[in-house]
């Protein structure tokens, strides 16, 4: 595998720049796994990955091909909130323009219009996604399986007390066959909008759901180079991992 990941510059199909949003403050529940999977699979497909970080106060990097962002604790969300609002227009322009993105849990919520806490105070989101979230006393925890048209079953683990409802401008990622997802009522999980995938699932999401990872890579490569040619990847463990994970109790 060491040979596979060391794609020499001369044979590379091109460089893809992956930006991690707020890895310092929003990194709970294995969010690094998503960035790592981007880095490795880009390289295994024959491209050259460039992993970038954006933290509070940094200059926002130009020419970003893929964006990934994760969840945080209350304290982490407070730290990034003002900075994220300042970046709202840039992120919105990128998302509307078709930049592939994956946002999980906390950043999924903040990519919506607002988060209304249990006590009724409102945290403003950046409105990239037509969703809003309400804090509840109920914590949705456990293994989740989501049936999706685009990626087949998406597997992961949810742990959140914010419940998200979707507006008419977006579609859900899929329908849960195990677990709750966006909220405890409508059976929907996550959001699809343009090339943005938003979800409550960690686990981490991308390792056990390579179809989502490859969608982000394919979209980025096609946008940047006009075409995409995948490599042949050794996915022998992921099939077994998915099979076993799907059988685990809630």
């Amino acid at each position, binding site marked *: 595998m060491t040979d596979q990941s060391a794609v020499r510059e001369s044979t590379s199909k091109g460089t893809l720049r992956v930006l991690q949003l707020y890895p*310092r403050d929003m990194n709970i*529940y294995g969010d690094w*796994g998503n960035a790592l999977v981007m880095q490795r699979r880009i390289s295994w497909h024959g491209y050259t990955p460039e992993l970038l970080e954006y933290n509070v106060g940094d200059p926002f990097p130009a020419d970003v091909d893929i964006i990934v962002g994760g969840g945080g604790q209350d304290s982490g969300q407070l730290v990034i909130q003002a900075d994220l609002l300042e970046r709202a227009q840039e992120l919105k322009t990128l998302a509307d323009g078709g930049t592939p993105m994956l946002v999980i849990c906390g950043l999924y919520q903040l990519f919506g219009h607002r988060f209304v806490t249990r006590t009724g105070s409102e945290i403003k989101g950046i409105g990239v996604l037509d969703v809003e979230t309400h804090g509840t006393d109920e914590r949705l925890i456990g293994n989740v399986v989501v049936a999706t048209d685009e990626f087949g079953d998406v597997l992961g683990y949810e742990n959140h007390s914010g419940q998200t409802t979707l507006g008419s401008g977006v579609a859900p990622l899929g329908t849960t066959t195990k677990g709750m997802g966006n909220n405890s009522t409508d059976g929907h999980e996550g959001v699809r909008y343009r090339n943005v995938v938003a979800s409550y699932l960690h686990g981490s999401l991308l390792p056990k759901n390579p179809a989502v990872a490859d969608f982000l890579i394919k979209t980025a490569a096609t946008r940047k180079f006009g075409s995409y040619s995948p490599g042949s990847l050794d996915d022998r463990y992921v099939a077994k991992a998915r099979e076993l994970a799907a059988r685990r109790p809630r």
Partner: protein
Amino acid sequence: MFYFSVPLGKLVRKVSRLRGGGSALPGLVVEKIDPGFMQRTLSTLPHGVAVVSGTNGKTTTTKMVVELLESQGLKVFTNRTGSNFTRGVAAALLGDVDWRGRLDADIAILELDEAHAVHFVNRVPPRYCLLLNVLRDQLDRFGEIDKTADLLALIAAKTTDTVVLNREDPRVARIAEQLTGQDVAWFGLDDSLLSTFPNDDDLRTAPGGAVPAGLPSTPDADVVLRGVGADSATFEYDGATVTTQMKLRGVYNIFNAAAALTLARRICVAGAAKANQDTLLTALSQVEPAFGRGESLTVEGQPLDLVLVKNPSGFRLGLKSFPAGGYATMVAINDNYADGRDMSWLWDVEFDSLRDGGVDQLTGARAYDMALRLQYDDVRIGAVDPEIAPALASFIRSAQGKPKRIFCTYTAMLAIRRELSKITTVEVVS
């Protein structure tokens, strides 16, 4: 009513022991008929109650404090962890009190799970507490690590005399700012060792990256761990530096030894005993890890180390503390309730250190999650079998003549010990 509660409880304890039952029933009986039993009995202790809490290392640290104080001639009451904390303490008390309910001990040293903290400290305000760390552990149960920090802060607030805090863990250190009347004592690390003790905020931040601030200035620590050798450790306290042999393995255990030493010395200084430095150090050098917290067994003439891993920081420390060189390695990952059901944490551990030797065997309900994790870190994988018994047998067969090491989650460790007890001597779990 309580005249009868102790004899009755003791009787239930005897009967349930004879029938091979656990400790919960007698504790339950006493709780029901005499709810004040635990509080009343503990309040008779001349030097009060000390609690040890934090995410990692409570059990072994509690054991260390107990053995340190016993080396100074104190009679110490302590608990074993169980599913229900107060009931477990009540049951343990029943075993130790006489028929009239008197406890023959000078002090109680109790391991207190964060989840049970509120309930316990509201009933029995401890005289001392020792707060080790706040790490990501079983978030699916406690929600968030900041909430765990709040629970530890509550223990500190209810403590009447001395609060012992980890200077190097920002979430623990900040608890000092909220305290009003208590004395605060610190244990700390030499700067040179800081990098080997990632705190939870460093997990994904490059060295030198910003970490939420601990305190504006670094407080002086009672005991500082200055260095760790292969089987020795160097501590500094009272302005002197001492090196001692250690039976405990793993740098994180040894850092907790500094914590235990800090608390034990504070208890002595407060009048419980005359602290004799030589006997304290001798006792420290002889402490062995608590059950299930990593142990070394012998299988077919070769050492086999079990290393418990239950959260990313613990796994990282385990990998740092037990270098892979020369060892055959197995990893066993279960996701039962006691292990934590969310597998995300495996992605917060870097496995580069296993790249040279690879991992010979993977097992457990989430063996393939682990395989995937190692694949993404370019670590060579031998065999994968989710069933623990055959995986263990094939690991032992294939690594004949080599020392072996197994990293395992809690319930995987229980299963492995059960299998190993068929072929070697393993301490009996009580």
